[in-house]
């Protein structure tokens, strides 16, 4: 499956047929710091992903002066 990561933008291929939580673990991403999006829908950590899925892992952290 294809994962689009942001800031900086890049894409990686990882094995599917497992949960969002497992994919984020492999990528070293804290699930509380990202939105996981598939086909315009938010996914919780328990959702199972398929081999041909494409997801976006979008950080929610903003830095700098506010």
């Amino acid at each position, binding site marked *: 499956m294809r994962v689009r990561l*942001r*800031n900086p933008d890049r894409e990686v291929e990882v094995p599917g047929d497992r949960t969002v939580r497992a994919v984020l673990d492999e990528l070293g991403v*804290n699930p*509380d*710091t990202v*939105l996981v*999006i598939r086909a315009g*829908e*938010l*996914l*919780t*950590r*328990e959702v199972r992903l398929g081999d041909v899925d494409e997801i976006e892992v*979008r*950080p*929610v*952290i*903003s*830095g*700098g*002066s*506010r």
Partner: protein
Amino acid sequence: MRCRRCRAAAVIEIRRNNAAYCKTCFVQVFREHVKRTIERHDMVAAGDRILVAVSGGKDSLALWDVLLDLGHDATGLYLGLGIGAYSGRSREVVQGFAAARGAALVEVDLERDYGFDIPTAGARGARSTCAVCGLSKRYVFNRAALEGGFDVVATGHNLDDEAATLLGNTLRWQTEYIARQAPVLPAKEGLVKKVKPLHRLSELETAAYAFLRGIDYVVEECPLVAGNTQLRYKEAMNAIEAGSPGTKAQFFLGYLERGMPLFATADDVDLRPCERCGQPTTGRFCAFCRARAQALGERIDALVEDGEVVGELADEVLPAEIYGRTG
């Protein structure tokens, strides 16, 4: 995973509350939460005109969206920082939101209105880029609100912002700033009332709300933010939170309930008008006028005054959160 309210399939999980929600219920819960926060802290009075500081990011647009939906008189304020394509995209997003919602928008541009931009000020001045950006925002928000006759300035600071700032302030024992880290700062001596209606909501929640509402926001991070102190504090807090969900909320909300009174006497500064622009400050010239003079290569004779150097150093290490300190 099921929605806590309606048992439909959940789309967002809030681990610190051991809760999950479907799209419809989450949006509703978010709005209700902001409404309660505004009421609990008397953030907005009936008939108040609110100026919402909007950057184009998820937090400020989510806030503007909720305020409009709650029926408030909420005008957006966009400040052009001159950070290349990033600022261009931010401006487009804010203008697009205002047009879609039929909301009023005030635009201020540092280059057009004050003769400098943030990259130049960061390169030429004594402060870090984030510090001069932060003080410019605080200055412009207050001045625009005063000049526009607004009653209150609302910003999109969220729980993660507040917890990270409190961590930074505590690590340095900046008691004066700790004392001012309140969700409401009342109006005084040329300073408009400032409120932070999202201070109890995490970044995950504000991002989820913006996404679920279909708000087009700037996902890209500011290109100048790399290595920013605030980001490092957030990462540290997130590492703790991952093992102990709720720590961030306990830290910041616990401070508001039990810690802030202990620091009350530290927030006791005398303000007077800046001799150049008239905005309130603790010295002869405000920090914005000093930073602007540095960016423009002008001389301003207060630059080397001891008392003001202290203020500049404090701004340097605390870029995010010093509402009361416009000087």
